């Protein structure tokens, strides 16, 4: 059943990735196909996750591949929140290939398997894994927006004559959206990490490297919000800071199987 749903979702994301690539050559048609590919892919993936949850009778995404599967779904969900608006469709150029590659990776690394009951409670897994992944999904989209900001800013600075030929969000809108996305994602990370740390203390377990990097990530994004809202940091500096935070998110994701699940 999961196989039957996995491939259509992957194909739909793949189609969206190619459609958005076409958008760079001829604006208009590509993004329309792309957005539909992402919508269909996300709906099929929702069914896939529901089927997994039903079969496991709990939270089946505690493995690295499983959490990657859930992560992709969350990233696309955040994107679909406002990415369908024509001005933001270009962001799909980053989201669609990322979704296709990561979902493929999730499938190849056992993300579709349904394991037996975990020694963690479902409530803990939902709150810890679910919230941390939701926050990471928010940071991923914020990084995409920051990248789009830097690209758009560069075009304006360099007086790109073709700048008006492609609809794109304004610098002010992009900058505000990056800040707003991080403002929503950071509390999720705070609660998710807090629950993980509380359980760690409860079990008298040792802190691992992933936890340290996750806390540094939290501190960096908290610093971003302080700099943005209190010190008036705007423009390129704040975009680079959002991208630096995302680099740490990638590090945490990559280090998870070797330093957290072992």
């Amino acid at each position, binding site marked *: 059943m999961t196989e039957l749903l996995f491939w259509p979702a992957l194909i739909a994301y793949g189609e969206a990735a190619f459609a958005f690539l076409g958008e760079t050559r001829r604006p208009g048609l590509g993004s329309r196909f792309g957005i539909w590919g992402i919508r269909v892919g996300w709906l099929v993936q929702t069914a896939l996750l529901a089927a997994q949850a039903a079969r496991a009778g709990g939270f089946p995404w505690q493995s690295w591949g499983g959490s990657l599967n859930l992560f992709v779904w969350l990233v696309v969900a955040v994107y679909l929140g406002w990415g369908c608006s024509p001005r933001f469709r270009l962001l799909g150029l980053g989201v669609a290939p990322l979704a296709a590659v990561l979902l493929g990776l999730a499938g190849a690394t056992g993300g579709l398997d349904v394991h037996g009951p975990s020694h963690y409670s479902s409530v803990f897994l939902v709150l810890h894994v679910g919230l941390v992944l939701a926050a990471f999904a928010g940071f991923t989209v914020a990084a995409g927006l920051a990248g789009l900001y830097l690209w758009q800013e560069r075009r304006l600075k360099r007086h790109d004559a073709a700048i008006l030929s492609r609809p794109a*969000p304004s610098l002010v809108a992009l900058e505000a959206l990056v800040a707003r996305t991080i403002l929503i994602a950071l509390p999720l990370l705070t609660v998710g990490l807090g629950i993980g740390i509380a359980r760690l203390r409860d079990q008298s377990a040792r802190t691992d490297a992933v936890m340290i990097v996750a806390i540094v990530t939290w501190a960096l994004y908290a610093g971003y919000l302080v700099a943005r809202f209190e010190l008036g940091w705007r423009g390129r500096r704040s975009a680079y800071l959002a991208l630096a935070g995302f680099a740490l998110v990638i590090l945490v994701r990559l280090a998870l199987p070797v330093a957290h699940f072992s």
Partner: protein
Amino acid sequence: MSALVLVGTSHHAAPIELREKIALDLAGAGALAQRLADGGEAVCLSTCNRTELYLAAPNGDEAQRRASAALVELAGLDEAELVPVLYRLRDEAAALHLFRVAAGLDSLVPGEGEILGQVKDAFEAGAAGSLLDHLFRQALHVGKKVRTQTAIAESPASVPSAAAALAQHVFGDLAGRRVLVVGAGDMAESAARNLSGRGATIAWVANRTLERAQALAERFGAAAATLDELESRLVDADVVVSCTSAPGLVLDRAQLERVQRSRRGAPLFLVDLAVPRDLDPAINDLEGCYLYNVDDLQAVVVQTLAGRRQEAARAEGIVTVEADAFLDWQASLEVVPAIASLRAHAEEIRQGELARAEARLGRLSDEQRNVVEALTAQIVNKLLHLPTVRMKQAAAAADGVVYADAVRHLFGLGEEEQQQS
């Protein structure tokens, strides 16, 4: 059947010295159309780029002669001077031309929006009957369709409008964004008007002489300032438009650096329309400052016009389809009298038979009468539906007259009138 005739000239065929001689304001165009109609139909479309007369009359050649003579008379020139620059189009070609005009495909700047309003005004001021009414309504529909289904009208086509569009790339919605205009000349005013048209607030006008600044500021409800106050105004501005005749720089990088510190990194979009330049080019290197000069903006306009031309190819496809639809409609007019006669004949038979049946059936209740009425009407409609559709289709395929004659002959339509006369 009436023929559609177009006689006129435009920027493609005539220089401005000739066009201005036959240009009319809306009232003049309306009066000329009423005079030319003379019981028929006429519309005069006159803009700075074209003067065109559209006539619908039974005799196309005669209508064409009248229109040409009217334009020659209007120009006050010898026929030999004006006639060579006039184009004369008939029926399908005339309709296609008007559709292209309404779509902005015949304009200097492809897809420009003003022409659609001018076509509408000319239509309303003219003397349109059934043919020109249908033609102009369809032209307005084509104009709107082309602008909504293609991107032909989306990009700016002038330096001031490109500046305003770029400001939107920085700020998005310009509502509430404050503009500082430096200089009080026509170019500065044009740029300010474009920004204001997109929702920005013209907050200050600064000029070397305060009196000129005040004159322009009053037109926008802005505050006037001298050039010495520039730095203090810049702190609160979002957009700066500069176009003075100063021989040197009005603002340099060091000044903007100081200002940006006070603005806490808020973006500032600067437009330098002056030659020699007013604003230090090094300002563009500052974080949050985006400086465009005339050449940068001109390059953007050239690029967007190229985009408009690409879209024009798609728009031509839409216009051609609509012109074909108009032609079909016009052809269907040939069979309309035959269809009307056939339906009248059928209705006459139905009413007669109904009266005879009533006499035989005796007194019917209202309900019974309604049922019989509806029944007979339905039979007639169903019988005539297919022949009506087929005749219209045949008309579109140019066989309409043959079919109409056949129907008249088969059903004996018009024979009674001929016998009576």
